[in-house]
């Protein structure tokens, strides 16, 4: 089954799992099934129209799905799907 890697900011919605197994043959199915398993992820991953939020990138193995076939990008049982959000920390204030 494909592995989905969960970034730190979203782990509190996946019971602190950094990796989850999710079934699906294209990215949209993976996203749908991930949201089914972890409903709180939905509003952080998708906008109100159901599209992936623009500050979140999804990579299948090493490549951005925006450069493949977007949500129709095919995945196989060995694929690793990474969710990579924008993070801004660096010079931290209190």
């Amino acid at each position, binding site marked *: 089954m494909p592995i989905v*890697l969960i*970034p*730190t*900011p979203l782990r*509190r919605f996946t019971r602190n799992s*950094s990796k989850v197994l999710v079934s699906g043959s294209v990215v949209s199915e993976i996203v749908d099934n991930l949201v089914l398993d972890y409903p*709180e992820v939905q*509003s*952080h991953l998708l906008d109100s129209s159901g599209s992936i*939020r*623009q*500050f979140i*990138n999804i*990579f299948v193995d*090493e*490549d*951005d799905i*925006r*450069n493949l076939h977007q949500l129709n990008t095919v995945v196989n049982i060995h694929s690793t799907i*990474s969710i*990579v*959000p*924008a*993070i*801004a*920390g*660096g*010079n*931290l*204030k*209190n």
Partner: protein
Amino acid sequence: MNQNRYFSKEELLRYNRHIIIPDFGMEAQEKLKKASVLVVGAGGLGSPLLLYLAAAGVGHIGIVDCDVVEDSNLQRQVLFDVDEIGMLKTEAAKKRLEALNPFIKITVHHAQLTSHNALDIANDYDVLADGTDNFPTRYLVNDTCVLLGKVNVYASIFQFEGQVTVFNQINEKGERGPNYRDLFPLPPDPGSVPNCSEAGVLGVLPGIIGCLQALEVIKVITGVGETLNGRLYLFDALTFESRTFNIKKSVDNPLNGQNPTQTSLIDYEQFCGVKAIERKVKQITPKEFVKWQDQGVGVQLIDVREPHEYELVNIGSQLIPLGVIGDQASKIDLNKRVVIMCKSGMRSAKAIRLLEDKYGWANLYNMEGGILNYIDEMELDLPVY
């Protein structure tokens, strides 16, 4: 001993371990000396970055920062000492770096980088290194680099995770690589992702990521090795896994895509929605809140901080962290006055705006100054953090 055009005898001794590396040598060391780098943010990332760039012999280093050194910086900002608390970070950094390497020039810009000063400040430098802490400045640094044709060595951290890449660099084929807007076309909604001052960060993480950023700056300047141009590096300190992804230019990039629409710097706070959320909310002071309680007014007190903060100190409030308050709004009592609090009053104001926007409720009040102000005003002997 042979005379050298660029280096004194002392410098040759100092940089000996660089110069004797076959693939680095005198040529790369000369490039470092001739280079200028602007480090934006002298914080967690800026600390190791500045120390290593100075130690390595980058000839001219600029530092932009407007903060002073605080106690809570010292857990990760290894550039500063206890006796520098209260000093301007730029001044403390300059002193430390000049002591570390007297053969380089340090210029300080004690200012916040803004759309008004960024092009002027950045223009004097070859490379920018972005170690800032917020989305508006991230986009500002990016756009400044794209408009001026400069390389942006980027690093960012969150709790246990770090990202590093090199934006806007020209490759060996003469093509310019992707930039921040290709990777992240739009910023997150304000308040949708907890920032680091709310979520915390392991002190050693900016040390690791800032060193990687310094490495990439040195590679960009010297041309040694392959930089992260067109690749995004991710490090997860919890699992000790790192991954590298391919990133590409987007035809939709407003700065240099197929149909560019942006030719100058913009209002980045507006772009990131920061201004939009600053609508005023109803405020209540801790004393007024206690008065309501004494008068027997029905009040529900909700705390939107993170569980670990709540565990540290709380005043018997109901915990609903900001990140989930939209989904758990049913817990809010519409028949009472609802006072929402956090550490200092910022997150609770965000929560109120979010609930007001979503449900139009009018019974929400922000605890002014958060739990810190409550402890102070009520003169309680509780831990502050």
